[in-house]
């Protein structure tokens, strides 16, 4: 799978760098350039040595540089499948290709880097031009020249065909001026890249399973507590906590709580989890004492305490309560971690100062026996057989029983043969009206 992905990635990136190159000249024959074949890519070095270098030797080189040019751009905008087309957005270039000496290479690996290398060692002058008007100011006499013409970028434009056709006009104008001034030149038209990014993304969205950028929840708490006297640490993870409290005087609700460790301790078979949270108007403490029951080999919470103090206006309510943990809750076999994606615990006590409800979101913790520095298998708060599953199982089994009973009845059907004696007299029944 990975291999396949890598392969596609390589193909995709290599396609992204392959641009077509069009070369034409009104005066210089191009038959000395090597023949290129369909379906073969010319690498950057070969392009530089065998194609561009001969061109810079005896005449001026005009490089028309597009930010992006690919075969697909030609396919889409040059009307290539119509034998009688005028070239679409590439009207002038097509006529140059047909009327002048020309060479067309369908795929060159990053042609621009090859051209850049040529410019580094080039003895003559390198000019950079944006508009055709700038060309008149250039001194092109005497030595050999390379003129780089940066064309209007197509990337990001809403009407690519129009941009290509504008650029096409511009190229025609520039070459016309050069011819007018009597300058001999060879022109090269290519692109820096061949990728079509924005357009493709906009029109066809493909989906695949990818990692999201930020998995970690800012509110999530993860605590790794080292225990003296044993090698395995104590892990505690909580995605979010919501505290709701109700007293006679005021109610409190907060779901944006950042928990901190408040001196958790652990040793061989006991662990005390101590958590605290402090806010502008509240103070929260939680203490769970867990120990391993040597008979059942489960760890359970033996003592628990929750403390909440909150201020509402001028009034301050302080509650020091015990959570009601149902049997089977917040416990797990010795080697397991406890996991619950949504767990609600309350302190329901008659005559309490306040009733506190804690909503644990994504709770997982393991006080003992952590191996390989990761949570062991989770002992989930969702039971294996939920009421829904029981309902389905029972009703389906009843139906299967009924069908089986019915099948049994059908299978035991027999022809009546008790009074049928083939040798004896036939039964005659007299019927009197």
């Amino acid at each position: 799978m990975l291999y396949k992905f890598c392969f596609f990635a390589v193909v995709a990136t290599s396609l992204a760098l392959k641009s077509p190159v069009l070369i034409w000249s009104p005066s210089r024959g191009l038959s000395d350039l090597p023949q290129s074949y369909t379906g073969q890519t010319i690498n950057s070095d070969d392009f530089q040595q065998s194609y561009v270098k001969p061109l810079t030797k005896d005449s001026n080189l005009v490089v028309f540089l597009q930010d992006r040019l690919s075969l697909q751009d030609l396919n889409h905008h040059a009307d290539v499948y119509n034998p009688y087309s005028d070239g679409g957005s590439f009207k002038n270039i097509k006529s140059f290709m047909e009327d002048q000496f020309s060479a067309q290479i369908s795929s060159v690996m990053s042609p621009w880097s090859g051209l850049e290398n040529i410019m580094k060692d080039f003895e003559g002058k390198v000019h950079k031009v944006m508009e055709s008007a700038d060309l008149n100011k250039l001194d092109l006499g005497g030595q050999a020249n390379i003129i780089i013409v940066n064309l209007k970028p197509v990337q990001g434009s809403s009407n690519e065909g129009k941009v290509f056709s504008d650029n096409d006009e511009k190229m025609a104008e520039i070459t016309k001026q050069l011819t007018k001034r009597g300058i001999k030149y060879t022109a090269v038209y290519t692109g820096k890249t061949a990728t079509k990014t924005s357009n493709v993304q906009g029109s066809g969205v493909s989906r695949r399973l990818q990692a999201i950028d930020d998995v970690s929840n800012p509110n999530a708490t993860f605590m790794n507590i080292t225990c003296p006297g044993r090698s395995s640490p104590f892990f505690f993870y909580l995605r979010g906590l919501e505290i709701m409290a109700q007293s006679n005087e005021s109610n409190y609700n907060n779901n944006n709580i950042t928990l901190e460790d408040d001196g958790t301790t652990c040793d061989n078979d006991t662990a005390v989890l101590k958590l605290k949270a402090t806010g502008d108007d509240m103070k929260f403490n939680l203490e769970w004492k867990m120990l391993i029951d040597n008979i059942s080999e489960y760890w359970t919470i033996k003592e628990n305490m929750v403390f909440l103090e909150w201020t509402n206006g001028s009034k301050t309510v302080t509650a020091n309560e015990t959570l009601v943990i149902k049997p089977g809750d917040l416990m797990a076999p010795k080697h397991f971690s406890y996991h619950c994606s949504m767990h609600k615990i309350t302190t329901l006590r008659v005559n309490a100062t306040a009733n506190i409800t804690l909503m644990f979101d994504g709770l997982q913790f393991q006080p003992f026996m952590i191996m390989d520095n990761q949570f062991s298998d989770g002992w989930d708060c969702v039971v294996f057989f939920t009421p829904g599953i029981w309902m389905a199982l029972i009703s389906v089994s009843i139906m299967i029983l009924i069908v089986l009973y019915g099948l049994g009845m059908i299978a035991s059907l027999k022809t009546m043969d008790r009074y049928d004696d083939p040798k004896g007299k036939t039964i005659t029944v007299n019927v009197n009206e």
Partner: protein
Amino acid sequence: MAVKVLSFRPKTYILPILSIYCLISQVICQELIVTHAPKYITFQQQADNLQTSDVSKVITHTLGVPTEDVKWSGLNQGSLFNRPKANVLMTVVTAEGKKPLSVKNVAKYPVKSDIPSVDVGQMMNVVQDTFFNTNPLMIDTGVDNNFFDVHTDFDVFRKLPDTMRRMADRLLDSDSVLNQHTVGTLNSSHPTDLKLMGELQMVQDVVNTISDKPEMMSTKSPDLFSFTVTGLRDIMDKHGDQSTQAADASDLVNNFINKMTEDFKKLYKDNVMIEVLTIVPEKAGYVRKVRSLKADPTPTPGPDDSKTTKFIQRL
């Protein structure tokens, strides 16, 4: 002494000659015959062997759709501004050692088989991905047992006959392959002969369907046709390579391909590339091993033979 040497020679030569013969026969049987290409496509005749897996890439490259590179240099890079509007690939399965098809052609290349057949589905996917907004016309037909397998997104091809029975009916029409070409000793009531005729008729019907709806060809994207003919091979297997039926079937296929080339040329006003690929399926790939409950040639003696014989004697 001299006599001894002479008597030895023929034997030593047999092996290399045989192996060369085998090589040649293998190479000759499998070839890519380009029956038509537009003028702007120029071929390089002295190219190396083309591999079957490269055929689809070469086709997509000629249509201007960039895919993976091919090492084969049989096609010169022509104009980037002229591309064939359509490509027709006909794959004909033949038998080993059989003389190749003799159709009119512009170029012929030996093909080395590295995969059993051309991956047409992949080719279609590449074209579809490149021209996702223009819905290119693509169709791939072949026979799967007694059903005609037509892969296309276009509903107009749904009314083509899809079973052998319907195809047999279709062949009785006046404009069918049976009535337009000389079929010689072939008989359409014979299942193998019917299969070949049906496959050719299918191609004919595809051509007819398109020519009835010329607006289907007016898109700005390349069209792709792929037809697979396996019937020729079946006739050779059934009646023998040297039989009159095999010869007649070969003639029929040749004539049909020539006619099909003309039809497509007319349809696309010469702007179409048509190839015929003849392939010889490797025998090893298609052997079906059948198991049956047979008697062991050397029966192992039973645990107590004497008792059985006694029992038989008593009977």
